[in-house]
């Protein structure tokens, strides 16, 4: 090949790189504009995207127009496209598509816009407040009663109809964290929950940055892929989900583990990492799946000691405050595993196979598939595969095999995927998110009026 022929692709690449800053700016502006439009329009009046809620953002009321579900879907598709463009540009080109300062500013603006708006797309946060008020204001155990037990409390009318008889499925640490918010009143507690989610999101992003840098990845691309993800800031933060707090504990564990390995192993940090995973599991049990991978990878006593100590402390406090029901995680997981959501892949596969929905035998088959996947990943970790990537795969497998799939569940593996060398994990996570979004768009193709 001649020197001229070799030079042509390089020239073309350099020429295309000239467009990178402009394209990046367009994508970033689109993301901000769409987030702002969703929030302003959602605050304008009754909307299928906004659950029935007490007055939270009255000052935004007269600005936008009522947000219909189709309008929301268009906004979601536009922001997903802009996010995809931004993710590709930030990872693909040698030229820095976006500076550190601008990346942090973009992610911060997106989070703050959603924080300033109404609760989006879920009634879960009202259940969180209801459980807190049950415990603190009425002396009821949220692990043995559903919100219907406080039917006369002002929060009850906002709790999702499907959940009003359901006791809390969250860990005792989360329930205890929510108790101090109960005396703030319904509106005050909701804002406090939103603030808690915002801080957890900021912490998760900061730790993602740290982990990416310690592992030799571009931290700018890492926080853009997580923080500018529409499912992350619209569904996760918009709904003030406690999954963000769980993810904060998860990334704290990963950060401690990476720091523990350099320059020489630190038992204290490894024990702390394991304790952090246990703390996350006492928020929401799912993150406990990281523990076996961490232990198998390290093959040292410290993570086991950290796990046992944190578990013993958590169980003791949980039992002392909530009794045996507060620490019976298995019962809560079994109960939730029986639910079926229309967006779950299991339900869609059942329809593909001509069945009306998921049958009990399907739950067993899915659990068996999940066990096989986790065993394979444990074997791979034992033989040197990155435990962080294995944990990410396990979290992704949990969400894909779950019959109760919600948008914020497919966020779990995302921060892990951007700090691992196995690029397949990020590709698979984003592909699953894309499929989830595609499944939402039927009202765009055939509206019901």
């Amino acid at each position, binding site marked *: 090949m001649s020197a001229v022929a070799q030079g042509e692709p390089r020239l073309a690449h350099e020429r295309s790189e000239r467009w990178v800053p402009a394209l990046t700016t367009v994508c970033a502006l689109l993301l901000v504009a769409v987030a702002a439009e969703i929030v302003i329009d959602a605050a304008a009046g009754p909307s299928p995207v906004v659950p029935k809620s007490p007055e939270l953002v009255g000052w935004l009321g007269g600005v936008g127009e009522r947000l219909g579900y189709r309008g929301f879907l268009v906004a979601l598709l536009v922001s997903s496209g802009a996010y995809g463009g931004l993710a590709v540009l930030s990872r693909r080109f040698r030229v820095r598509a976006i500076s550190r300062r601008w990346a942090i500013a973009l992610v911060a603006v997106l989070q703050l816009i959603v924080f300033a708006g109404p609760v989006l797309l879920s009634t879960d946060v009202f259940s969180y407040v209801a459980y807190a008020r049950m415990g603190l204001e009425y002396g009821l155990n949220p692990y043995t009663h559903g919100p219907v037990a406080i039917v006369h409390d002002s929060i009850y009318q906002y709790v999702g109809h499907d959940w009003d008889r359901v006791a809390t499925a969250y860990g005792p640490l989360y329930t205890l964290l929510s108790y101090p918010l109960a005396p703030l009143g319904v509106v005050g507690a909701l804002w406090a929950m939103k603030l808690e989610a915002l801080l957890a999101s900021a912490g998760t992003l900061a730790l993602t940055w740290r982990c990416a840098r310690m592992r030799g990845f571009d931290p700018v691309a890492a926080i853009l892929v997580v923080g500018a993800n529409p499912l992350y800031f619209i569904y996760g933060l918009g709904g003030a989900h406690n999954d963000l707090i769980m993810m904060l504990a998860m990334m704290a564990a990963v950060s401690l583990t990476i720091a523990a390995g350099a320059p020489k192993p630190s038992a204290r940090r490894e024990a702390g990492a394991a304790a952090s995973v246990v703390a996350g599991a006492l928020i929401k049990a799912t993150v406990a799946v990281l523990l076996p991978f961490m232990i198998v990878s390290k*093959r040292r006593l410290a993570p086991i000691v950290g796990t046992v100590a944190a578990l013993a402390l958590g169980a003791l406090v949980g039992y002392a405050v909530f009794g045996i029901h507060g620490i019976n995680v298995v019962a809560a997981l079994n109960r939730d595993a029986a639910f079926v959501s229309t967006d779950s892949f299991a339900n*869609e596969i059942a*329809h*593909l196979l001509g069945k009306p929905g998921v049958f009990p035998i399907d739950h067993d088959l899915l659990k068996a598939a999940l066990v096989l996947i986790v065993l394979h990943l444990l074997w791979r970790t*034992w033989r*040197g595969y990155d435990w962080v990537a294995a944990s990410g795969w396990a979290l992704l497998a949990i969400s*894909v095999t779950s019959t109760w799939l919600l948008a914020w569940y497919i966020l779990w593996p995302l921060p892990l995927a951007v700090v691992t060398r196995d690029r397949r994990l990020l590709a*698979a996570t984003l592909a699953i998110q894309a499929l989830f979004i595609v499944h939402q768009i*039927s009202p765009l193709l055939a*509206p019901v009026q």
Partner: protein
Amino acid sequence: MTEVSLPVEERRWERLPPWLRPRMSEQPGSGRLWRIETTLLVIVGLFLAVAIVNDLAREVRINHRLVADLTTWRHYTQHDYVNISIDQETLGANSDREVLCGNTSAGPPGSKTQICLAVWGPIVAGRRAVHGGWYLPPYYEDVRSERYGCFGAVRGLCPR
């Protein structure tokens, strides 16, 4: 290919056969496993994509049918009401047969005597055939014990 040497504290695993010993990092040359995993992932991904597209097409078909059902209810009752409930289970889930209930006179949803229509069959000129129905008292859910005045092919669904 050579084994990655283990640190001193890992020597206890040397009793295990080589293929069972833990490693600090992956052995170079594990490309075959990587290819198998990637192939499986692609197959699973394609299967999920097909399932999603199939479900999307199914939902679109249902939405088209529901639009025809709503038009049918409004045409049959001569009321241009918006709040009409649609039940896809009473006449059999996955049966394409629906029950649509709405007020017989203007008012908040369910606040007046409601007329429920049993609708099924192909969409013709934007509507489907009404095969019968029943009435419900104000503020009552559509349960068998509350139905009255059943007519058409669904007479057997009333208690009296």
